[in-house]
């Protein structure tokens, strides 16, 4: 659509939203940044220093949390994207039924992460339904034989909960693209002798790539920064970065505060980095598809 210039008008229209975002959001980030640099007048700290950054970066507990968070986000997002694309493709190919699509669309948004965590706990914990079913099949004879999948140090429960939440999200993002792909593409490809697999790989996949990448970045960033699921389903060690930041923050020892804020700043920087990578990749794809 053609956009016109109109002097100050658009700025005035954007002012209320910007006031909220600059006042709260950016204001929050700035406060965080100041405290992470050691500016904390309430307890008599006024000198700007990178000391806390150095200390946090050499702290093995922090590095363990960072890699744990990245690992959880990476594994859950890759699996969710692969399965989500599979589901989207399957629905657009075989099921034109709207009921299922609508159900899938509503599922991820009406169920909050707290409830998702509860469901995964009731399904996958040692006393959960799957462990019971396996006992009934005679595969195990007591509870402890069932592998620890919740509160475990590999974060399996957290990963499963994110996959549960994210498959529908990816599926919907990709489905909206696949739904609009002209059916005659398929006829052309098949006429030229393409197999179904080739059609998927050379036609459908490239067209839906921007949607796949967007959904990957969004779910990666979300699972990287979210608190509820790892807090409810994670082990006491290692903790994800948000959980670690939270436990530091509620500690009554105020001298620990700058370290907390350093963690928060790292969370923010990594997320901003993700957006930059994302817009970069999207640009490459726009050039590519021109």
């Amino acid at each position, binding site marked *: 659509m053609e956009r016109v210039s109109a002097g100050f008008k658009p700025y005035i229209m*954007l002012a209320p939203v910007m006031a909220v975002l600059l006042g709260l*959001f950016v204001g929050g980030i700035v*406060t965080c940044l100041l405290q992470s640099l050691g500016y904390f007048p309430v307890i008599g700290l006024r000198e700007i220093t990178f000391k806390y950054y150095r200390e946090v970066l050499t702290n093995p507990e922090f590095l363990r949390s960072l890699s744990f968070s990245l690992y959880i986000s990476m594994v859950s997002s890759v699996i969710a994207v692969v399965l989500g694309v599979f589901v989207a493709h399957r629905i657009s190919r075989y099921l034109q039924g709207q009921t299922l699509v609508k159900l899938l669309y509503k599922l991820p948004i009406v169920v*909050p*992460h707290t*409830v998702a965590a509860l469901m995964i706990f009731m399904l996958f914990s040692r006393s959960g339904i799957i462990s*019971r079913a396996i006992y009934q099949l005679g595969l195990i004879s007591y509870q402890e034989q069932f592998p620890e999948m919740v509160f475990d140090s590999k974060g399996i429960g957290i990963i499963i909960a994110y996959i549960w939440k994210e498959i529908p*999200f990816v599926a919907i993002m990709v489905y909206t693209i696949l739904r609009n792909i002209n059916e005659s593409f398929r006829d052309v490809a098949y006429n030229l002798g393409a197999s179904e697999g080739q059609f998927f790989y050379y036609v459908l996949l490239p067209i839906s790539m921007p949607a796949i990448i967007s959904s990957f970045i969004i779910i990666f960033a979300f699972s990287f920064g979210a608190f509820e699921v790892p807090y409810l389903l994670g082990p006491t060690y290692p903790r994800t970065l948000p959980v670690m930041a939270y436990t530091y923050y509620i500690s009554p020892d105020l001298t620990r505060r700058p370290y907390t804020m350093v963690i928060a700043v790292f*969370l923010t920087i990594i*997320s901003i980095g993700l957006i930059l990578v994302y817009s970069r990749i999207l640009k490459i794809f726009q050039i590519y598809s021109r």
Partner: protein
Amino acid sequence: MKLRIDFYTSLLFYSILGFLLIPFLILFLWAFSKNWPWPDLLPHSLSTRGWESIADIKFIKVLLHSIFLSITVTFLVLVISIPAAKALAFYNFRGRNVLQMLILAPIVIPPMAVTMGIHINFIKLGLTDTFWGVVLVHLIPTIPYAVRILAHVFEAVGWNIEEQARVLGAKNWQIFLYITLPLITPGLFSAGVLCFIISFSQYILTFMIGGGRVMTITMELFPYVASGDRTIASVYSLIFILTTLTFAFLVDRFTRENYEKGNHFYL
């Protein structure tokens, strides 16, 4: 060979559907069970203990308070997002991309990281532990969705009809009330439902800024999930899902005529 591949892909597809849907069944069973020891696949005995715990005036108060809070958030976020979305849809101006990035940033930047800073600022302003403090902080995760959905709506609607009204001599408020508002109503409702759900689901923002004083349904639910009381947690979860579904359904019903004209698929 082909048949076998078909069989395996179908198996995978229906396993995924099962994985997504079976948890709801379990939630339902737990909500009514009294005694359900391992390794039984069905509850021993049923009870209404969970349901009795919500037939309590205190719980109903929290539920209503929670709904009221989220409706306030939804209303405010829509009011400030309409002009912003219109500006992004119709105008070209310096810094447009930067502002757009800033509006979308809360989707990607972790709430945990930002909330600690906001909490400290709010302590100075006396906004912690207050209703309005929580409402304000809920604006952050909802703004990106509201602006994005409404910008799409404005782009789809265009401004020809508004121009016509202007040419015919309508005043600004008349244009807004009689032209713009009716045109964007369906989009306004879908944005509203999403914002309501986002606000309704918030835990960590509400907990940190509300300090446990501003009660919402998610705040009530969280400790039961954490402590593993499956019966009560399941009942609360069902109430939560029912509330959001009812809200979505009512709004859907209300705007059905508009929906039939165009299938909006926003997220």
